[in-house]
């Protein structure tokens, strides 16, 4: 019986110490979270705008781009599984460009996410790979931090580039690629082409009537 009480005393003390530690450190975390969260949210919004600015120029819009978007439900062409935002750039009341996020599900290692800026005439203003896991030093040339390759799409459209030309040079297309990493280039080209087709089919919804 004595032993039982002694044992439970140890258990009680241990539990108490753990609770105290838990409370102390939760409080610290709560404090730090509250202090840093506004800054993090702000810098995330800024980073997002910087990203959008890479595919459309500042001069072509004067609206609050970050908060001007339409939701796109899961779509065959854009390969999104959950609703994504398409940002609408306006000058005055006129839509000058849209920024669409598209996915290449068939990269060499997993999905590649690409941001495509398209003007109201259907020409590409800019493209950026925003997420990929391609092989470092080989397939990662699609990343703007590694090479300028992704800029070759600028000014292309469905009109000036035929269906067949949307491919790498090896497949009689018009786009360059790095040999040894053709799969990556193919995936990106198809995804960008699909984004343009999506734009053509849905531009009325985005407020463009040309």
């Amino acid at each position, binding site marked *: 019986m004595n032993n039982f009480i002694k044992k439970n005393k*140890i258990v009680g*003390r*241990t539990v108490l*110490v*753990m609770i105290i*530690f*838990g409370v102390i*450190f939760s409080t*610290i*975390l709560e404090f*730090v*979270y509250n*202090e*840093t*969260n506004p*800054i*993090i949210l702000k*810098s995330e919004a800024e*980073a997002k705008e910087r990203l959008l600015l890479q595919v459309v120029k500042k001069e072509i819009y004067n609206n609050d781009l970050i908060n001007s978007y339409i939701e796109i439900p899961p779509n065959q062409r854009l390969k999104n599984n959950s609703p994504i935002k398409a940002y609408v750039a306006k000058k005055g009341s006129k839509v000058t460009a849209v920024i669409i996020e598209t996915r290449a599900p068939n990269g060499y290692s997993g999905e590649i996410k690409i941001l495509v800026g398209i003007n109201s005439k259907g020409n590409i203003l800019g493209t950026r790979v925003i997420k990929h896991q391609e*092989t*470092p*030093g*080989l397939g990662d040339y699609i990343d703007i*931090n590694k090479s300028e390759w992704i800029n070759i799409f600028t000014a292309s459209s469905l009109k000036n580039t035929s269906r067949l030309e949307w491919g790498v040079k090896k497949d009689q297309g018009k786009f360059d690629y790095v040999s040894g990493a053709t799969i990556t280039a193919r995936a990106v080209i198809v995804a960008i082409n699909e984004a343009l087709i999506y734009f053509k089919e849905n531009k009325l919804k985005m407020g463009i009537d040309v």
Partner: protein
Amino acid sequence: MFKEAVIDGLWKQNPGTIQLLGLCPTLAITTNVINGLSLGLATMFVMIIANSSISPIRRFVPDEVRVPIFILVIAALVTVVDLSIHAFAEPLYKALGIFIPLIVTNCIVLARVESFASKNSTLPSFYDGLFMGLGLCFVLIILGGMREFLGQGTLFSGFDLVFGQALSGISINFFDEYSGFLLAILPPGAFLGLALLIALVNWVDQKE
């Protein structure tokens, strides 16, 4: 005490080449110098604060539950570091990404807390965290350097992404047309590189 910590951390008990603890991030992130350096510094920082905050409270921690409590403290500290870096050093956060939360699971942190800080007073624990962290950091830098040189033919590339535009000139490109040595960049390259490094350390030790 100070001298001992220096020798143990940097050579005799080096976490990367002798203790072989915390290998997961060591192998995963050392594709170039800047990644190795950044994660090395972040880990070192966590080790310093973990050691020096657990040492003063070691008397209040019951022996039976010391490990969960140490983990709790380490996890809380790492979260604080993670949030702070995200808020105040966004470029660094982007470069290190998921590896900062993973410092919690890096067993070198717990190992030093458990085997050193829980038995020694605060100042020696501080030194232990500092030099063990520094030792690991050196291994990460050297391994990153080996893999970057072999794999991409460069050294110190990408410093500007983390430390600002001023350092963009530091990057060295050794070859004009280098097609890259993929094996060095992929995970097997990390194992081979670390093995070479350990062999070198053992060779030096044997000669003495």
